[in-house]
């Protein structure tokens, strides 16, 4: 029975194009209790660690999803006849990190942080669905406010926005970098 549950969950994850959340799995498997389900998922994940498999289940954006392994990248590109995937511009990455760390945030605030008008980059990010409008700020002009989306998490392989280093951790990393730079003999 347990094995069957594991199999069912595997097929559900397989059939989902977006990370499949635990809630959704539970919502489908109403005749199993939550404990059983959670345990089956854990066991399922384990089988992928030990087995020699070309595909694996990863956790992203709060859910589970099938993905190929990084080391097979070049073969898949050959199959799909793709040279490379498009990457985000550095402006887009900068804008995304401004939003990720300061959300919810307005366009004016993003531009102020970056020191550059960011409306065009924001548009690109909205169209790529990496950013979403979540309402308005209660301030003069009632500007729209933005947040990173679920797709943002999936795109960067994050399970949760909290997986990003906190601002404090970030400052610490930066300080250490600066110190080691100062200490380096190549002055």
């Amino acid at each position, binding site marked *: 029975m347990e094995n069957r549950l594991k199999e069912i969950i595997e097929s559900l994850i397989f*059939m989902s*194009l*977006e990370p499949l959340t635990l809630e959704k799995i539970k919502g489908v498997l109403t005749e199993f209790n939550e404990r059983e389900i959670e345990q089956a998922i854990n066991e399922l994940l384990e089988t992928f660690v030990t087995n020699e498999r070309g595909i694996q289940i*990863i956790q992203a954006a709060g859910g589970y*999803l*099938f*993905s*190929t*392994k*990084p*080391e*097979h*990248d070049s073969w*898949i590109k050959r199959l*799909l*006849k793709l040279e*490379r*995937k498009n*990457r*985000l511009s*550095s*402006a887009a*990455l*900068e804008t*995304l*990190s*401004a939003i*990720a*760390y300061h959300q919810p945030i307005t366009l004016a605030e993003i531009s102020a*942080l*970056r*020191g*550059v*008008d960011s409306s065009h980059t924001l548009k690109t990010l*909205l169209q790529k*669905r990496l950013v*979403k*409008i*979540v309402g308005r700020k209660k301030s003069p002009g009632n500007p729209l406010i933005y947040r990173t*989306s*679920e797709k943002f998490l999936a*795109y*960067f*392989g*994050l399970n949760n926005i909290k997986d*990003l*280093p906190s*601002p404090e951790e*970030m*400052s610490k*990393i*930066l300080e250490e970098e*600066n110190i080691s*730079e*100062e200490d380096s003999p190549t*002055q």
Partner: protein
Amino acid sequence: MEASSHYQVKLEVFQGPLDLLLFLIRKKKIKIHDIPMATITREYLDYLNQKDRINLDREAEFLLVAALLIYIKSQMLLPREKPLEEEKDPRQILVDRLLDYERMKAASGLLKEKEEEEMQRWKRTALPAVFSEDEMEYTEVSLFDLAESFFALMKRKETAEIKTIKGQEYSLEEKMKEILDHLEEEDFLDFLDHFNRQESFEEALVAFLGLLELIKARIVTAVQETHFRPIKVWIRKKNVKSS
């Protein structure tokens, strides 16, 4: 003092004035907290003087920060009766902005690494045709989608109203190109959706003929769902046969 021209760095590589400023500060290996205003201001202005490659829009942003630098510098040069308290340091506003910026910059570097990692993992953007249930046409929508959809609708209507009646002729090639363009972007083209989007029956007809042409030419494949399902046709891009 080393000439800034020694660094052959174009302004374009900087994401903005703060990025340039941060670069200059790092180059001097000084801490953000104690910026020598005179030096940094001079270097910054030197960079702006090679501005032949920046366009007006960005120039305004670079100049704004230049003005800020000069202002801070002037504040520091003013004779004071008593020494400034720490929090009154006119540089503080700049320091705060730079620290914020530096953090963001570091975070964006981190995102770049993550992106690079994720690029090597392939996820499916569509399910194999065998499984195609009609869920395929459904997408998770956001407020932006909603607003964008309305915007597109209005645009379509607007152009439809402006267009006076002309001998409506639709080119087969154009319609074929439309389909291929769509397939460049997406893995699938929902056949029904596509035809619903045509403005008139004639146009839809030409689009359909275009589709048939593409199938005949083996550029696309129309896949029908298995067995007893209601007729639902999927089109997908087929890799050009190498043989």
